[in-house]
């Protein structure tokens, strides 16, 4: 099983070379599981995240949040198959970026194989990750960004930020060569999206009335349903990232569910103890915090480690959204940075601590490989630095292209559902 995984990992690294294709045979079990996983991860964006975020946004911006999530997935779907995939997984250039050989998925056909699955399936599986990553960013900026600016930003960000980082980690780039462990996207997805969200929120500024007016979620019930769909989809995200129907997939599944549950309990406990209410939004956010933190570790750590990773993620998530945000004063509207950024950093670090050779062969600090912690820290710092600077550049280009990033203040007060989309989420009375 481990040998199979290692062979798979090697196959992934070699994947950009066309010679790697067709070398292996398609395994129907692996293929079925990755196709199902792809569909599961797809659902996370226009259903799971869309509900999770829209329910948290204010009643007058519910549909705008939904629209931003949906349009992000659509943009990623088109960009990925035209130029995104090849930038991330095309032949490596200096460890930094993939070549343009597979523009429009050129050079592959129905018989192409990546690892033990058809390359088309691999392309689609990776597409769903690009989709959710860019959509996650909007959790920091809802209620105030122009829809046109979001579209331009999302297209640029997938191209210039997501694709390079995905290449570094999964496309045979420098982080992969350095030995950084990121099973399903701690760096690529969560740190990347969380830091980008914070940068965008800082440039956009706070929502009008932030810190004075109450900004309650439109529907905690929708958010809780969204979190449940994210949880469900995350089994494809993490267990699917084994890219095989094998023991590692099962182990990743186990770690994923355990961490999510543990983090929800931890968040609930921390909130109940400190703020006196075990809120439903807290439970739902705890689930997501635990899923985020286990993402880079899922296929590397054992059950005990997943319990600890979830426990810390729940408490860390609670303190980052309730205390750190208040102290620092930034308006991370739906806590993309607090939950995805910070819990993603914890998960990437924890992978370096707890990676057990019995799972996938990689060892962390507690299994006699202290060097792994250093490698993880370098990968975390590099992702943060690149994303922070790169996102700022993308933000300013977007601002220039669309003539400002923010909606006019009258629209912000009226609500973006009616001002931008001409619709209302609910017709009551």
């Amino acid at each position, binding site marked *: 099983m481990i040998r199979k995984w290692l062979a798979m990992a090697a196959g992934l690294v070699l994947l950009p070379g066309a010679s790697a294709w067709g070398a292996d045979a398609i395994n129907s079990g692996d293929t079925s599981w990755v196709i199902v996983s792809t569909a599961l991860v797809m659902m996370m964006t226009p259903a799971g995240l869309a509900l999770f975020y829209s329910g948290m946004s204010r009643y007058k911006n519910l549909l705008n949040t939904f629209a931003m999530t949906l349009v992000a997935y659509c943009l990623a779907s088109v960009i990925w198959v035209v130029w995104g995939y090849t930038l991330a997984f095309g032949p490596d250039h200096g460890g930094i970026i993939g070549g343009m050989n597979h523009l429009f998925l050129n050079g592959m056909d129905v018989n192409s194989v990546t690892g033990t699955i058809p390359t088309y399936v691999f392309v689609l599986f990776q597409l769903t990750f690009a989709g959710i990553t860019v959509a996650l960013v909007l959790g920091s900026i809802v209620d105030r960004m122009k829809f046109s600016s979001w579209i331009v930003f999302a297209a640029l960000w997938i191209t210039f930020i997501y694709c390079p980082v995905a290449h570094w980690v999964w496309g045979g780039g420098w982080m992969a060569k350095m030995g950084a462990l990121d099973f399903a996207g701690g760096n690529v997805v969560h740190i990347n999206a969380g830091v980008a969200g914070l940068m965008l929120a800082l440039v956009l500024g706070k929502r009008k009335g*932030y*810190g*004075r*007016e*109450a*900004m*309650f979620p439109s529907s905690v019930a929708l958010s809780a349903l969204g979190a449940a769909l994210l949880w469900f989809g995350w089994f494809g995200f993490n267990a699917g990232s084994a890219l095989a129907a094998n023991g590692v997939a099962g182990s990743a599944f186990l770690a994923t569910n355990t961490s999510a549950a543990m983090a929800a309990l931890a968040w609930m406990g921390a909130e109940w103890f400190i703020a006196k209410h075990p809120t439903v*939004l807290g439970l739902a956010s705890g689930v997501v915090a635990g899923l985020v933190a286990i993402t880079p570790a899922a296929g590397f750590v054992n059950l005990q480690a997943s319990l600890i990773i979830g426990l810390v993620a729940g408490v860390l998530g609670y303190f980052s*959204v*309730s*205390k*750190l*945000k*208040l102290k620092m004063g930034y*308006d991370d509207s739906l*806590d993309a940075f*607090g939950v995805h950024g910070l819990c993603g950093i914890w998960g990437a670090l924890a992978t370096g601590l707890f990676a057990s050779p019995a799972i996938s062969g990689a060892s962390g600090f507690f299994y006699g490989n202290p060097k792994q912690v250093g490698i993880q820290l370098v990968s975390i710092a590099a992702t943060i630095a690149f994303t922070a600077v790169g996102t700022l550049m993308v933000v300013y280009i977007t601002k220039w292209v669309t003539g400002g990033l923010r909606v006019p203040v009258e629209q912000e007060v009226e609500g973006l559902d009616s001002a931008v989309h001409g619709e209302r989420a609910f017709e009551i009375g």
Partner: protein
Amino acid sequence: MKKIEAIIKPFKLDDVKQALNDIGLQGMTVTEVKGYGRQKGHKEIYRGAEYMVDFIPKIKIEIVVPADRLNETLETIRKSASTGKIGDGKIFVMSLEEVIRVRTGETGVEAI
């Protein structure tokens, strides 16, 4: 005739209504209102974001009584609406010129 406007805590409405029924007063108009007095607003925090609660939800009761029943009515409202804590509300009293029952055209105390 006197018109009484009482601002009370929402959860005390049933007690006040019952107490007024018990002394034989019938009819009242009730409105959900928001406001602040000496209690002022206060700061709250939701998910790490502060906000001011300037206006606190209250219930406004309006009733009209003959002048000779005023003191008894005021005492009943005050007792039944009181919790002894800040924010129990206020009672305003004003003289009323005329009351007309729409259906019959009766006026004055007869119309109350």
